[in-house]
């Protein structure tokens, strides 16, 4: 299931503005990799290039190599939709489809991708909602609108929706920043369980969260506004948080940043 991601020489541009520069890193399978760094240093930008979601933004383009288990996801002729089916994404704000029920939200990806096997859907819903630690809370109201859930439940619903299409990589962009502490802990539990099966990359502004859930941590920084973001340092989370090689990393983590 889970896959390794190798990134090398990655530059991303918005029009003529270079947002991130020369990123190279390896993301290990069955692990959680945290991306940290100050606002605007290009974490989201970088994350979106891992499933080619940046192509949705007019003028955005990436150059460089992203290999997922040795397959170049930017190979010419390759369909970005196929990449996104393999690399799922969870966003900062919970965004269940407002016109759909909880049930339909979970299977939305499967249905809208054009795979229809009605008989299997019930099983998929139960399995994924269980994986998302949401089954117990919603099993009696699957026909209710997705928007009727609490924020934390909505976010777990969105995670369920993302894993229902059986991706191999899961990207999460600040998945807890719109949530209360209890919901945050629930999601963190979920992330720890999911890493058994998926390669997970998570962006977070919360140092404790990075320390709690991730196995490896990458620190991004920008020299100044208007300059591209760069990868400063990457390593085991334990090492980054206790004994980083770079001064900038230490400053950022200990809050002496800026």
């Amino acid at each position, binding site marked *: 299931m889970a896959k390794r991601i190798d990134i090398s020489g990655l530059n991303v541009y918005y029009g003529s503005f270079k947002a991130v520069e020369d990123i190279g890193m390896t993301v290990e399978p069955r692990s959680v990799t945290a991306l940290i760094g100050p606002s605007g240093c290009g974490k989201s930008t970088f994350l979106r290039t891992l*499933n080619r*979601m940046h192509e*949705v933004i*007019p003028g955005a383009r990436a150059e460089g190599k992203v290999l997922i288990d040795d397959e170049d996801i930017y190979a010419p002729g390759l369909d970005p*939709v*196929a990449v*996104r*089916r*393999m690399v*799922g*994404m969870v*966003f900062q*704000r919970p*965004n*269940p*489809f*407002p*016109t759909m029920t909880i049930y339909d939200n979970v299977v*939305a*990806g499967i249905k*809208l*991708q*054009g795979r229809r096997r009605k008989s299997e859907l019930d099983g998929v819903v139960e399995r994924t909602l269980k994986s998302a630690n949401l089954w117990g809370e919603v099993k009696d109201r699957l026909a209710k609108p997705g*928007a009727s859930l609490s924020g934390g439940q*909505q976010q777990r619903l*969105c995670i369920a*929706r*993302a894993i229902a*299409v059986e991706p191999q990589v899961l990207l999460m962009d600040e998945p807890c920043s719109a949530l209360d502490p209890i919901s945050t802990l629930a999601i963190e539990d979920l992330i720890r369980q999911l890493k058994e099966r998926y390669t997970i990359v998570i962006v977070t502004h919360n140092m404790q969260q990075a320390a709690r859930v991730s196995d490896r941590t990458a620190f991004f920084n920008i020299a100044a506004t208007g300059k591209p973001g760069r990868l400063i340092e990457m390593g085991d989370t334990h090492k980054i948080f206790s004994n980083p090689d770079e001064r900038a990393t230490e400053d950022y983590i200990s809050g002496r940043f800026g």
Partner: protein
Amino acid sequence: MSTVVQAEPSRLMMSRSRLPRWALPLLGVLTVAGTAALFALTPLRGTADFVLIALPTYLLLQTIVVARVEGGRQARNRLATHALTLTFVVSLVPLVAVLGYTLTQGMRRFGLSFLTHSMRNVAESDPYGGAYHAIIGTLEQVGIAFAFAVPLGILVAIYLVEYGSGRPFARTVSFFVDVMTGLPSIVAGLFIYALWILTLGFRYSGFAGALALTLLMLPTVVRSTEEMLRLVPHGLREASLALGVRRWRTILRIVLPTAMAGIVTGVMLAIARIVGETAPLVLTVFGTNSINNDPFNGAQSALPLYIYSEAGQPNDTAIDRAWAAALTLILIVMLLNLAARLLAWWRTPKSSH
């Protein structure tokens, strides 16, 4: 901020004396009594005259009194407040007059027989005959226009919002949609006449009228749909795309359903607008007294055409029929409007964030 109020702070702080609360009502009563006395003593008569005399008198007296006691600025403020309130009342006068008149005049002939009979073999002076043929015509013409304008308008709006944003081509299209919004309905009729009838050689028909109505409906549908599509949060599109759903499916299955209530509201208002269009139909549908169920062949009638032609007759019986048809038309338009507003109110996208 560049706009500066020329206030006199010192005078404001002094909080000048205010009129007691009973003063202005008393003034009102006095004015009415005075005017009544005037009407009793002089040959002045009539409600309208009464209002026309009492109201300005009251405003004048009130301004003087307030100016004396509370100062000129307060007096101007009160005068302005009253004058603005008055403009609102004035604006309602035509509404009440038109609707009230249509209702009372229309009820004389309105009824089942009016709705189920045509004008075939009915002389203008006959006290019967109805608008059945016109209702059929209107339903068919508007139905065809709907079938053209709604899908086309939604597709154009989808292009403008989902594909074209920022591109010169989209800006050009958007500009001409605006131009189309301002197209006089008679010009739309002339165009279809010049194209469909003069150049292509077709006959007058309900369909030709529907083409003209399509031109009038299209920009309204585009604009309202565009507005609704822009209200759909960007995150929903991204969520769907990130699931590996293709763009066209994302648009049709996620974006459109989310915006649907607003789109339906806009479409209903667009229909309400074209149901009453007369001018383009004069040139393209022509009008007839008989039932013609076939919108593709020969002259048809339509409610607005029917009103127009009956209104031009010198007989009171014809005028009564015109009012009954006007009532029918207004009922249709008001129902559409009401339904649209209710739907909009009912299903306003209540933000879940």
